[in-house]
């Protein structure tokens, strides 16, 4: 088989135009053949003769190009004739031209303004929809939790411990490191400001109150939302894609009890512990920075800490953790169960799980602040 690329030669023959096609007319040469064909502009009503006898190979793309140029050149005044075609080439051209029906490549985009308004409305309704079904999901999980508490044998302790390890123990290094660094940064920034009033010692109050009450629990929750909320959504989402969730339902197993409860319970147990670690690490980081840059020795740091911070300050931070944990785990599981169709959907819902759970955590934190102020703690 010769390796010549497809070519078109124009042979002047009196008052008609003769085109000789040769070489391999296939998809690899289609770009150059298309532009060569586009340049053919025979004058007026000159008849055209297309000679296919020198074709080496013809594939469907080549056949389509020939068919398309015949249609393009043909007019009421001008005749176009094919000659010398081998039987199989003629058949292929006939088949391709017979098959062709124009089709949409993608769904029509529609009017831009209409699209904007539609999207706005759809998104608003979606948010309401999500709020309603998320509330229902919380209720469903609560019922399932109560039922399991009545029959503790139904609680899956294996699954709970596995998730406690994945979401808790494995998160220790990153949570510790982040809070240690936050402790350092707080002391460094705070000391710089307080030094102007000669009140550097109050940096310890600043550190202790902000970390214990707010930052420790908030930062840990955000890290856990990123780590475990996303993992929950992706795990359950891909199980949903592979019909594992449907298989559970079909076997009379309750997906909420099997998939959601262990995750919610384990996160509610480990998040307070993680917050405790984060508090300690942040104080350690702060103490180290006090010692290095402010010359406040660890014993003085401890003394000051003990005189300013009382136990309720610590509890105010830690008591929020189980609530945040429930929000994160519920959001992750909820979004996971919403997955349908394609791999893209897993990604979309995982992203949503993280964004929504961080948002909900911060909203809940604000509500807690109001509550605590009212209670006068």
């Amino acid at each position, binding site marked *: 088989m010769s390796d010549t690329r497809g070519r078109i030669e124009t042979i002047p023959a009196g008052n008609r135009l003769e085109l000789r096609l040769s070489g391999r007319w296939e998809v690899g040469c*289609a770009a150059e053949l298309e532009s060569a064909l586009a340049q053919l502009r025979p004058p007026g009503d000159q008849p055209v003769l297309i000679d296919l006898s020198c074709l080496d190979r013809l594939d469907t793309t080549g056949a389509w190009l020939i068919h*398309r140029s015949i249609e393009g050149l043909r007019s009421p005044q001008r005749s176009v004739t094919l000659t010398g075609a081998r039987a199989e080439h003629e058949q292929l051209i006939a088949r391709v031209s017979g098959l*062709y029906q*124009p089709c949409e490549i993608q769904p029509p985009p529609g009017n831009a303004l209409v699209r904007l308004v539609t999207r706005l409305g759809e998104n608003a309704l979606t948010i309401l929809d999500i709020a309603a079904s998320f509330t229902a999901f919380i209720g469903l999980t609560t019922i399932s939790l109560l039922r399991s508490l009545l029959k503790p044998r139904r609680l899956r302790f294996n699954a709970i411990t596995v998730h406690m390890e994945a979401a808790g123990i494995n998160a220790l290094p990153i949570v510790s490191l982040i809070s240690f660094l936050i402790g350092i940064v707080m002391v460094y920034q705070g000391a710089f400001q307080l030094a102007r009033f000669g009140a550097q010692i109050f940096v310890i109050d600043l550190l202790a109150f902000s970390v214990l009450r707010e930052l420790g629990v908030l930062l840990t929750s955000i890290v856990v939302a990123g780590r475990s909320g996303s993992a929950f959504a992706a795990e359950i989402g891909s199980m949903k894609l592979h019909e594992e969730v449907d298989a559970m339902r079909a076997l009379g197993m309750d997906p909420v009890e099997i998939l959601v409860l262990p995750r919610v319970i384990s996160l509610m147990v480990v998040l307070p512990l993680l917050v405790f670690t984060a508090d300690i690490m942040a104080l350690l980081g702060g103490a180290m920075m006090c010692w290095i840059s402010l010359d406040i020795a660890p014993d003085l740091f401890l003394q000051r800490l003990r005189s300013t911070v009382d136990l309720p300050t610590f509890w105010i931070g830690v008591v929020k953790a189980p609530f945040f944990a429930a929000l994160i785990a519920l959001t992750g599981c909820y979004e996971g169960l919403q997955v349908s*169709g394609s791999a893209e959907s897993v990604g979309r819902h995982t992203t949503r799980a993280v964004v929504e759970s961080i948002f909900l955590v911060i909203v809940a934190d604000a509500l807690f602040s109001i509550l605590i102020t009212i209670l006068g703690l």
Partner: protein
Amino acid sequence: MPGPIIRIRGLCNAFGDQIVHQDLDLDVMEGEVLGVVGGSGTGKSVLLRSIIGLNAPAAGRIEVFGQALAGLQGNARRGLEQRWGVLFQDGALFSALTVAQNIEAPLKEHLSLSRALMDQIAAVKIAMVGLGPEAGSKFPSELSGGMRKRAGLARALAMDPEIVFLDEPTAGLDPIGAAAFDELIGSLQRQMGLTVFMVTHDLDSLTAICDRIAVLAEKRVLAIGTMADMLRQDHPWIREYFHGPRARAAGVWTETPGT
């Protein structure tokens, strides 16, 4: 006389301790439809993946179009890859793209064609595999299993390949759909002069469109030949496969086979 278009010599594949292929030899002739059968776990799909270079073999030589894929890099390898098309088991369509965009994906990647021509090629391929023009703008998740397979075949044919690899093309289709798909593959093969390498379990497909059948067992190609050759084989697994009740239902043989 057309020669072998795929030549495999001494192929070995192993996953950990488990040896899948040992000294496997196989020739696929130009323009034939070869059906590859074998029990579960005999490495039919691994063989297919080895030929198209998705699976690096532990040892052995695989030549396609007279070139060894393993030794090729960059453009030469891409050039070779453009000469075959693959239909994966469930179509493996890109879920973020519509059917038409799936078909255009390889064209866009390898060639610089005009928008209009690409759309027209996609439309021709969609019609060729028996899908209606409305399927073009649909996403894979909106299609039935049979339509996904047809769309996958259309994508495999996008670059007008010389060889088409099919991994269980009729699995999961109803008998009518499966028969129609066999018919489709057969007619495309005749019209475009394709070589077809087909992993299948479907005795109907084997009788309807395969020129030759290769039986994978005991880590190698145990037997290769026409259906008539298979019926004469004495190996117990081959006897059971081609003389079983399902084979009779598929019309592989009609009278009581000789004992």
